[in-house]
């Protein structure tokens, strides 16, 4: 894979909104000058609750290869419990970043050979006035803090537009608060 493409794999469960999250980051990246933002979900038969993943590729140039990511630079995990079923770091480049939604501390979440960033998105989302289990906007904040790839304000605007009429402010607040509270391994 060409080195000027940043590859980000998102792991979630069917119905969790991982695809929406990745799409919003694609949009934010595109608005920030990445002309080649591509988000390609890997589909099974749609089944609620089953582990799913989606590929987000970001580049300054047009991307012609739409095949799923095999060697990501960054992995985002919307539910830490997926890690007991799915090898989320499969193919992750050495020293690659893992962004985790987990109640566990950074100390307890470390993964050998990779950099980890953690946030308790479930808790922050509830505090922000979202329904139980809505984590796909909060995780965007964690992603922004951990990677610095896209500005949190740009992402927050994208979230407000996407969720217009559906707790837009609360969703944007979840992202911003998560951004502030995300702990990133040095």
């Amino acid at each position: 894979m060409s080195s000027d493409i940043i590859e980000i794999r998102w792991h979630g469960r069917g119905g969790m909104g991982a695809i929406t999250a990745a799409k919003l980051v694609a949009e934010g990246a595109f608005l920030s000058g990445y002309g080649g933002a591509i988000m390609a979900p890997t589909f099974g038969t749609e089944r609620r609750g089953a582990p799913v993943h989606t590929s987000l590729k970001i580049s300054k140039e047009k991307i012609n290869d739409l095949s799923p990511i095999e060697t990501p630079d960054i992995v985002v995990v919307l539910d830490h419990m997926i890690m007991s079923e799915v090898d989320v770091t499969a193919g992750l480049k050495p020293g690659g970043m893992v962004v985790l939604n987990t109640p566990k501390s950074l100390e307890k979440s470390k993964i050998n050979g990779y950099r980890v960033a953690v946030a308790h998105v479930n808790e922050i989302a509830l505090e922000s006035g979202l329904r139980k289990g809505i984590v796909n906007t909060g995780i965007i904040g964690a992603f922004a803090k951990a990677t610095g790839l896209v500005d949190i304000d740009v992402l927050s605007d994208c979230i407000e537009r996407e969720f217009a009429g559906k707790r837009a402010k609360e969703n944007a607040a979840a992202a911003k608060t998560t951004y502030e509270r995300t702990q990133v391994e040095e």
Partner: protein
Amino acid sequence: MGQDLFAIMTSNAEGGEGDAGNTGSWRVERPVINMALCTPAKKQKASCHLCWLYCPDGVISKDLEPEIIMEYCKGCGICAEECPTNAIEMVAESEFVEE
């Protein structure tokens, strides 16, 4: 017969658990039965069993105290919806994770 040499590859699935793997991992919420409210458990006689009847995956037993095979239960919640005495509660899987 010659026919045995042909159509050696077709898409057939046999009945039984596990054809699609460990589908229990798909669960977001888990059905938990309160035996104090469950009709057959309470009366100690075969009755109701609507959860057994409606479970689309056939993973609920038709016992006086029904058991659910958690390896394959996808957590769809139909049993909880159908239970006439509201004996089945859907509990978030996160509640069962050891911190």
